[in-house]
């Protein structure tokens, strides 16, 4: 045996206490905790981008707690919904704090999840054997989008109402059944009381489905453990360290920094991500001059509007998300990390830039140059997945991949010294 390089925790039972023993025999909860924290081996070279997952999980928790608290004071009735939000902001003790946490939490959740996904794309985390881990992640993204969309309708401001109208109206593009489906979704011919009520109920329900999918995501993750910046799987014991205390401490440190930024927005720029127009009560008779969804939907909204007809746009928008399900098989390269993929690496950054361009176009009216740029960017978005990734995997001559994670760490160490 090689001598231990860093302090490992001595293998001691977590449950000396007879009650704990009794419980653990019948419900192995302490064994489970020990297995997933103490004994769970993790690559030792994870960088700060690997904090995203735990931060997103904590944000989900923050959203659920703040959301349940808001739900106790919110009234999902078109005549009172807007006023009940104002009552929360003005009359409920620290209501403004709870609501601003919830509102900004949604944006931060998407920032974290998008970063988490871009990290997976850069380091090839979706590749074998982690394809299902990735697919469950995309399902979580879809659930988050549905939850966020319905949550945005609840304050019953101008953008809430018109956003709900525009998005539900998309389903009318479905041939034959379109109008019936829209009516079924809305609970009537128009966005009204039944719509608001069911959106509230579903907005309350879906986060708990997200929790369930996060659990599945974690089970998938723990099957093979985390990928790492080298993209090389763990080969020997010196490649890895136990999750606790190393990554618990690193995640907690990351959390304090994250909370600093989060608090900065909640306390000093709480409406940064909000549209001012949504502080005006919903008015079905007055269409706002400019209807745009929240920033996290803008790239998909741009794709929707790039198609000349409505059905095409709807199919395009849903394909833009669905294509992610096939990513593990569209990328033909066996090499995971972009660091050793000289052709893919710049193309990854072009893809990011393209996503930002789509986000910018989503804000703009679909006319003139904006429409042309939007169409090109949409084309490039799909080309990246359907043409570039398969072809690059085939054409590319990868650099030499380190033989192990420890070898990678040595290389990085020497590189930093220079």
């Amino acid at each position, binding site marked *: 045996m090689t001598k231990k390089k*860093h302090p490992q925790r001595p293998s001691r039972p977590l449950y000396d206490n007879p009650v704990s023993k009794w419980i653990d025999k019948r419900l192995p909860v302490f064994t489970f905790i020990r297995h997933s924290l103490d004994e769970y081996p993790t690559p030792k070279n994870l960088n700060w981008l690997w904090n995203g997952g735990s931060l997103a999980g904590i944000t989900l928790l923050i959203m659920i707690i703040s959301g349940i608290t808001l739900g106790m004071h919110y009234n999902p009735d078109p005549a009172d919904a807007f006023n009940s939000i104002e009552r929360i902001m*003005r009359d409920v003790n620290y209501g*403004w704090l709870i609501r601003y946490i919830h509102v900004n939490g949604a944006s931060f959740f998407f920032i974290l999840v998008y970063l988490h996904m871009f990290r997976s794309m850069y380091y090839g985390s979706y590749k074998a054997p982690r394809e299902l881990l990735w697919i469950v992640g995309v399902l979580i993204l879809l659930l988050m989008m549905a939850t966020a969309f319905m949550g945005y309708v609840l304050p019953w401001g101008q953008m809430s109402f018109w956003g709900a109208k525009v998005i539900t109206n998309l389903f009318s593009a479905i041939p034959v059944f379109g109008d019936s489906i829209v009516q079924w979704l809305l609970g009537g011919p128009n966005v009204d009381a039944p719509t608001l009520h069911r959106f509230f109920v579903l907005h309350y329900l879906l986060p708990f489905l997200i929790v369930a999918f996060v659990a599945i995501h974690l089970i998938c993750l723990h099957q093979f453990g985390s990928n790492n910046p080298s993209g090389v799987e763990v080969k020997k014991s010196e490649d890895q360290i136990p999750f606790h205390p*190393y990554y618990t401490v690193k995640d907690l440190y990351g959390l304090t920094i994250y909370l600093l930024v989060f*608090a900065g927005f909640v306390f000093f720029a709480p409406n940064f991500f909000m549209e*001012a127009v949504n502080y005006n009560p919903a008015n079905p008779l007055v269409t706002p001059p400019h209807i745009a969804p929240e920033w996290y939907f803008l790239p998909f909204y741009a794709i929707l509007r790039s198609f000349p007809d409505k059905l095409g746009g709807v199919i395009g928008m849903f394909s833009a998300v669905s294509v992610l399900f096939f990513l593990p098989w569209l990328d033909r390269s066996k090499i995971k990390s972009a660091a050793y993929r000289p052709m893919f690496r710049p193309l990854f950054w072009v893809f990011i830039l393209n996503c930002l361009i789509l986000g910018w176009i989503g804000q703009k*009216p679909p006319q003139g140059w904006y429409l042309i740029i939007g169409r090109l960017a949409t084309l490039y978005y799909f080309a990246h997945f359907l043409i570039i990734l398969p072809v690059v995997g085939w054409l590319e001559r990868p650099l030499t991949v380190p033989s192990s994670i420890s070898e990678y760490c040595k290389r990085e160490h020497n590189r930093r010294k220079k």
Partner: protein
Amino acid sequence: MIRLFIIFILIISPPCLADATTRPPEQTHWSFATPLGTFDRSAMQRGFQVYKEVCSACHELSHIRFRELSALGFNDKEIKAIAADYSIKDGPNDEGEMFDRPALPGDSFPNPFPNEQAARASNGGAFPVDLSLIIKGREDGANYVHSLLTGYGSAPTDITLFEGKSYNPYFEGGQISMPPPLVDGQVTYVDGTPATVDQMSKDVVTFLSWASAPELEARRQMGLKVILYLIVFSMLMYFVYRSVWRNVK
């Protein structure tokens, strides 16, 4: 980030799609606009006077209760007196009749019109908006409302005003139903401040900014403590992290 990116793009993009008829708001210095800024109490009181004597003839302030005016520096007795000036429709009483009574500190500011139709009928078809959220409900709200209140002028020759409209370049489309609401010396300030249009506008914008976000000062005070706490906590966590990881090569 996203907004910065968008602003950057807006700067470099050609101005071909900008709405030529609407002028962007003039930028004014506000005491509450800085990260730790507070509302100027005397400006708020003057602004409340302007709201009470001018704006409240048409505009409601439904989300504010009289007792909240303590934030302006009024004491309980003064608030009771202010409230008593307003009349509230209450009831039904034991005989089943609706009745009028003087407002109490727990009441909201009453609506100057019984309903939207009545408001439109007295204002040439236009509906005077509720001012409780006017600052938050407009992009760059404080500057926008101040620009709007002080920005009335005669229409350029190429614009024909509709019946009952006034020209205001800061209003979307340039034609606004509200006639110029302020003229110099319209109110007599108790503290002797000269009541110019600019002064009254600044004061009422300060008051309405408070009405939009009454939690603003408490929020910033708490935020400062939270941030300081997190800075210390993150530094401690940094040392814990470094000490746990010191042997990982």
